[in-house]
């Protein structure tokens, strides 16, 4: 009886909030501060319930039998373009030390704060909202930055430091399967650890946290100039996402991610000729599109509650999925003209890879050109076509591929398809006819409609050499990470990471298989040094691909091998045979931050640790695996004495729990 009134009150409150925010732009700073703060003051006076957004919590459908998603008509919706984030003034004003009184989450002070005073600031408010994934669906409950899925795209430039205030306005309690805590990682920003979204640095509803992004190239300490750092270290396509320890999959499945693009002279946001520009398709939303992939499954449409909820069993891992969304729409279409377009593909998972290829109206595979991987330009761009090896682009979770497609190879009125290899999604029963000969509709991710000749003139051909990469780091010391799935009861366990400082020495790996713990450091490196890291996937041959992600620094792959005849506890180095790497893995042509490691494969990479200290992570980015603790904290320290002290401490901890000491005498610094 009184419910409608309550709802009305809330609407009024919401409107007031909006008005005050808008008026900030018109008013002076002081007046603005007062109006922005006033809702906070009001909230704190209220009862214990907060973080309300007026969005009804979901009623999850029955977990068994697992439902089939509602059918949909392909190519009904246009590809949405996530809107760019709008810079805004922040009140309270961002500070170097956490502003605890003002409601900021506890953290270490920002590093290099004075050197990179934020020039652009944003606020992204993480809250519950609804999103329609297909126009034949009703809205689905989810969580998004500023209530949007995908979150707003942050467009930044090297040389202009930024700061993003991530505010947690998630409902607590929630009836969804997410956990209303958050910590936001800019994947793979070169940032101080306090702004890196460390999995243990989560904060609850009502708090905010300022992440400081220097937008400087790595190598700040060694290179002067403007923008600071080594320009060869430029990275462009990032994505930001929730990194809450052990709950990352559920929170990302609810939609807590977005894209972050940093421009520079080489890769500016325009296409006309400016000094140093590669002249790639660059107009965001016109010739340059992010493509954010997310696999999902939906509950049957609930007309009573007006929802088509995402299917998920609370707490029961990630569901088998039967729909793939691109920028939050199922099988969308995009009108293009006969010219080159850039697509920044991000696989947000949450667990499975997306393997794509371009298919023409005749059903034949057409070429597309990979220009960047994991935000880094390839030295030489690489084609993916029917005649290349591989003939498809495997985009593992968290990997980004910037791909240029030249639609001048098609005629006006034709359609081309971004198709997935394997894994057809469910469309309807019976399925619509194949859109192109030999191309099942379920394998199509999206359709490109070629509607005319270009209005914006086409960009020149892609250069044969895009960039010169920085030299491969020397790799002074060696460290090995073993990614294992420990089955059986002795010891029991799951996805674990083991470590050794001695190459291919299984006896030196831990035997206690401890789970991820934000309170335990498993490796310490010295700022300003380089290391050779080996990433071993010690699960069965051909089993469990682990897309391993390393925070802070990009790596260069110098070797990839597979062990074809593993023995019980590892691999005899003599049994390792080299694996041919695609151009987007080879360290002479590419830089990576995600290393897709097949069962019994081993990557040897080189890394330099620069500019920042603190706590960082290495983990499997299959979010189901990282939530099952396949993650490790490693630290960067800035003095040899500290390195020795910390490494001795790790040795002592390992001996105390019955493992071999990790570091040898020569590793102690």
């Amino acid at each position, binding site marked *: 009886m009184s*419910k409608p009134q*309550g709802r009305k009150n809330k609407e009024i409150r919401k409107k007031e909030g909006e008005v005050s925010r808008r008026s900030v732009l018109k008013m002076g700073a002081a007046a603005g501060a007062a109006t922005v703060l006033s809702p906070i003051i009001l909230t704190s006076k209220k009862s*214990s*319930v907060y973080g309300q957004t*007026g*969005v*009804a*919590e*979901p*009623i999850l459908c*029955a*977990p*068994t039998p697992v439902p089939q998603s509602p059918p949909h008509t392909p190519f009904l919706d246009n590809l949405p373009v996530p809107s760019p984030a709008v810079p805004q003034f922040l009140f309270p004003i961002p500070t170097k030390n956490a502003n*605890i009184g003002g*409601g900021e*989450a*506890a953290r*270490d002070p920002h590093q290099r704060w004075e050197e990179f005073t934020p020039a652009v600031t944003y606020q992204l408010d993480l809250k519950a909202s609804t999103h329609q994934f297909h126009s034949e669906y009703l809205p689905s409950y989810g969580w998004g930055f500023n209530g949007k899925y995908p979150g707003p795209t942050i467009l930044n430039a090297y040389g202009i430091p930024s700061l993003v205030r991530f505010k947690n306005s998630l409902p*607590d*309690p*929630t*009836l969804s*399967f997410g*956990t209303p*805590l958050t910590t936001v990682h800019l994947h793979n920003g070169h940032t101080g650890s306090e702004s890196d979204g460390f999995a*243990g640095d989560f904060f*609850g*509803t*009502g*708090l905010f946290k300022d992440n400081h992004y220097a937008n400087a190239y790595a190598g700040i300490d060694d290179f002067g100039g403007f923008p600071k750092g080594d320009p060869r270290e430029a990275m462009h396509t990032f994505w930001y996402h929730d990194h809450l320890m*052990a709950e990352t999959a559920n929170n990302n499945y609810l939609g807590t991610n977005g894209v972050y693009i940093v421009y520079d002279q080489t890769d500016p946001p325009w296409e006309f000729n400016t000094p140093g520009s590669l002249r790639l398709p660059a107009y965001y939303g016109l010739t340059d599109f992010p493509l954010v992939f997310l696999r999902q499954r939906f509950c049957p449409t609930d007309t*009573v509650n007006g929802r088509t909820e995402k299917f998920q*069993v*609370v*707490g*029961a*891992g*990630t569901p*088998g999925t039967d729909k793939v969304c691109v920028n939050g729409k199922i099988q969308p279409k995009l009108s293009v003209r006969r010219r080159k377009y850039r697509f920044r593909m991000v696989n947000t998972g949450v667990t499975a890879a997306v393997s794509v290829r371009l298919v023409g109206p005749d059903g034949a595979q057409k070429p597309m050109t990979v220009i960047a991987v994991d935000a880094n330009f390839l030295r030489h761009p690489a084609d993916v076509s029917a005649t290349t090896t591989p003939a498809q682009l495997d985009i593992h979770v968290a990997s980004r591929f910037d791909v240029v497609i030249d639609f001048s190879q098609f005629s006006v009125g034709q359609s081309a398809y971004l198709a997935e290899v394997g894994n057809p999604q469910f469309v309807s029963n019976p399925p619509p006819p194949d859109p192109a000969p030999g191309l099942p509709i379920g394998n199509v991710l999206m359709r490109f409609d070629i509607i005319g000749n270009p209005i914006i003139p086409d960009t020149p051909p892609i250069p044969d050499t895009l960039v010169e990469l920085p030299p491969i780091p020397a790799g002074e010391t060696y460290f090995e990470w073993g990614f294992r*799935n420990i*089955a*059986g*009861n*002795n*010891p*029991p*366990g*799951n996805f674990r990471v083991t470590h050794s400082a001695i190459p291919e020495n299984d006896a030196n790996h831990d035997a206690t298989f*401890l*789970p991820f*713990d*934000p*309170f335990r450091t498993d490796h310490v490196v010295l700022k300003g040094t380089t290391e050779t890291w080996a990433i071993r996937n010690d699960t069965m041959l051909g*089993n469990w691909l682990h897309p391993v992600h390393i925070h802070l620094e990009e790596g260069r792959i110098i070797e990839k091998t597979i062990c074809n005849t593993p023995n019980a506890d590892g691999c005899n180095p003599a049994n390792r045979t080299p694996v041919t790497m695609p151009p987007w893995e080879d360290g002479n042509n590419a830089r990576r931050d995600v290393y897709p490691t097949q069962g019994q494969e081993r990557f040897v990479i080189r890394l330099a640790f620069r500019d920042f200290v*603190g*706590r960082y992570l290495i983990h499997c980015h299959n979010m189901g695996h990282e939530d*099952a603790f396949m993650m490790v904290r490693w*630290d960067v*320290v800035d003095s040899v004495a*500290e390195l020795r002290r910390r490494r001795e401490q790790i040795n002592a901890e390992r001996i105390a729990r019955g493992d071999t000491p990790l570091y040898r005498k020569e590793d102690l610094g």
Partner: protein
Amino acid sequence: MQRRKFLTNLGRDKPSTAPRAHVQGVPAAGSPGPSVFTNALLLTHENKQVRFYDDLIRGRQVLITLMYATCEGACPAITLKLLKVYEELKDRMGKDLFLYSMTVKPEEDGPADLKHYAEMHGVYGLPGWTFLTGDPYDMETIRYNLFRMDHIGVDTDIYSHTSFMKIINDSTNRWLHVDPMASMSTVLRKISWADPPKTRQQIMAENKKLQEKIDKERKVYGYRKDA
């Protein structure tokens, strides 16, 4: 008045935009109830018959672990750790927090075996800590429903999830997991995520305390020891 209003909204089928209250002992509106937990008739280590959902889960905050009586691998270490966790939370155990150890080998483990296991590990007779066995089909259903990760290879291996501890609060519909072999502070923090929602004042106070801890650590150790 506001509070009474949202109390009446509890248990409604329709999602409500009204604030949701949390009442310990009352299942959350979205609780999957017996459809996921099952209401199977199980036996405790005291040979008492219990309904899994109605008697053990409904409206409660619970910790659920897997074990089997003849396990000699890491089970003793895990049980020892669980005992330490139990001691940390002693004031709540049996009142608003319950710990259930369920056997993955119900065909071998009868109530007497579970009792023997509890005695052997020095955890017998602790209020709020119950060992459970039952019909193998029921036990397997519960294990699968609660511990599955939708990875067939992992989910069919009964040993695969023995290192998980599920943290479930049926009154807030919160489901979390932690590995009990993680550090005590991590285990306790994860359990607290399923606690009844905190007030803003509580969150602010905890945040302030955390910042004090960070500042102290930086002063004493020079880095985030987090110990």
